[in-house]
């Protein structure tokens, strides 16, 4: 497995560096924001902290999601019959080949999480501990894992192009559902609030929403594992469709 993982890092060095740079830039931006906002003195109440948390959340979302666009590149390089035949001939076989991809993506995610954790700790210190987005980071990390869990089996079975399209459709559907809720659902708590950002944070942390939010990391971890098992099963069938 270490050999296969090394191979993945070698052939995807550019996308790994891209992940690092994106995470680094977003992290530095968060720290600079904290510095320019004047640190903890600028936050007078919880609504101010809520607004800063939302801005940080958006930055961290970018840091996780921009590199996620390069996931398909990891598979594109191996999308031909010669590579697949070679992968199946090594002792780890197709299973090792597919699992190494999952380990690579997990490692890549963890590296992004680590970089953002360091910058969030620095930003939190500058704000005197009034703002911390560590839980947001965990949820975003799990969100990306879930997206990868949905995307990879399709990439393996139908190729990277179709995989991207299906991931786009899933993300689109989720955003569409959220959009429909915010257009037609009962959001009086948000519209009538003095500070919508703080009201949104309060909504997230109250009632049953928090239970599902708490369950989400475990669900996405399980989904990632199940996705890996499915992908291993689909690999041979997917390889038959590849061009020479």
């Amino acid at each position, binding site marked *: 497995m270490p050999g296969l993982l090394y191979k993945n890092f070698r052939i995807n060095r550019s996308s790994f560096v891209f992940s690092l740079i994106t995470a680094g830039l977003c992290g530095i931006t968060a720290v600079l924001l904290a510095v320019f906002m004047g640190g903890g003195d600028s936050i007078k109440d919880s609504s101010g902290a809520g607004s800063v948390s939302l801005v940080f959340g958006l930055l961290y979302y970018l840091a996780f999601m921009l590199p996620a666009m390069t996931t398909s590149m990891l598979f594109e390089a191996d999308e031909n019959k010669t590579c697949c035949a070679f992968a199946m001939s090594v002792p780890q076989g197709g299973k090792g080949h597919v699992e190494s991809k999952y*380990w690579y993506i997990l490692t890549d995610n963890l590296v992004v999480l680590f970089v953002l954790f360091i910058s969030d700790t620095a930003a*939190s210190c500058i704000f*005197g*501990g009034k703002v911390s987005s560590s839980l947001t980071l965990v949820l975003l990390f799990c969100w990306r894992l879930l997206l990868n869990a949905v995307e990879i089996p399709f990439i393996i079975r139908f190729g990277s192009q179709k995989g991207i399209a299906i991931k786009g459709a899933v993300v689109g559907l989720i955003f569409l559902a959220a959009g429909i809720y915010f257009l037609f659902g009962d959001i009086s708590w948000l519209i009538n609030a003095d500070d919508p950002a703080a009201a949104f944070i309060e909504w997230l942390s109250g009632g049953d*929403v928090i239970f599902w939010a708490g369950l989400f*990391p475990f669900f996405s971890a399980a989904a990632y594992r199940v996705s890996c098992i499915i992908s291993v099963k689909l690999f041979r069938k997917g390889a038959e469709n590849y061009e020479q």
Partner: protein
Amino acid sequence: MSNKKLTIKRLGIFLGISFVPFCIIIPVMWACFGEPIYTSTDPGVMTAVYALGVSGMMIPSAANLITRLVTKEGFGNSYLGVNLKGRTGWWIASAAVKLAENAIIMVLMWALFLGGMSFSDTFVSPGMPVWGLFLLQLAGSLILFFPAFGEEWGWRGYMMPKLMEIMPKPAAIITGGIIWGLWHAPLTVAGHNFGTDYPGYPFVGIGLMCLMCVAMNAFLTLLTEKTKSIYPAAFCHSVNNNLSTGVLASIFCTETAAAKIAGLPPVTSFLPYLAIMAVTAAVSMILLLKKPKNAETE
């Protein structure tokens, strides 16, 4: 140089690099802020202490890395592999044992210190929001995994294998735990975990910390040795730090009970914690000394 001498030399270098930073930083910070830094209520000092905690936990890992490079040891036995196959049970145990310990500690706290309150007055009925908060807090352990890994890769990934090379396992567990506890000594003197207002300050605090580290070291070493990987121990450490008694009390206890638990002297509230960990340590020691089945048949 014989193997044993080389191991002792490497261990010496590792421990030197691990111990020096705190021995310098803590007195300097204490002098700068003019008070024991862990008891301060000043937001600036608390922020500095948080940053120190996160970065300080990385020191043993840095020491491991530097020692391996300086002594040209290489990374052959670095425990950085995952080794999940056939060892999933130990991975699950890394979090499950800590969660079970915490549940027993909460009940012990109620029985020992909140005897005047009924069970229903102490604990809230666990509905969806309560479980949600708990699950989120547990998931938050993922973010604390990084500093925990920082400590574990040094102590369990480097120090313990070296100690087990030069002495029997039980002696290595006790020695390793005491070294780990003494590494915390500058922090304990500065008020970490116990504050500064307790009888026998700071020696009782340092002693308790050493006892806790010996107990915890047994289970963490067991996890590391059984999985030949440092990650379960790191995850267990992060769950331990993330789900402290105070945090659990704020989730599962009523406001009155949580306030009572928070108001207990730290040394007193530490004792049930230590008792439960001692039980885990004893079981871990037995499992660690037990020969594997395939070794018996050979």
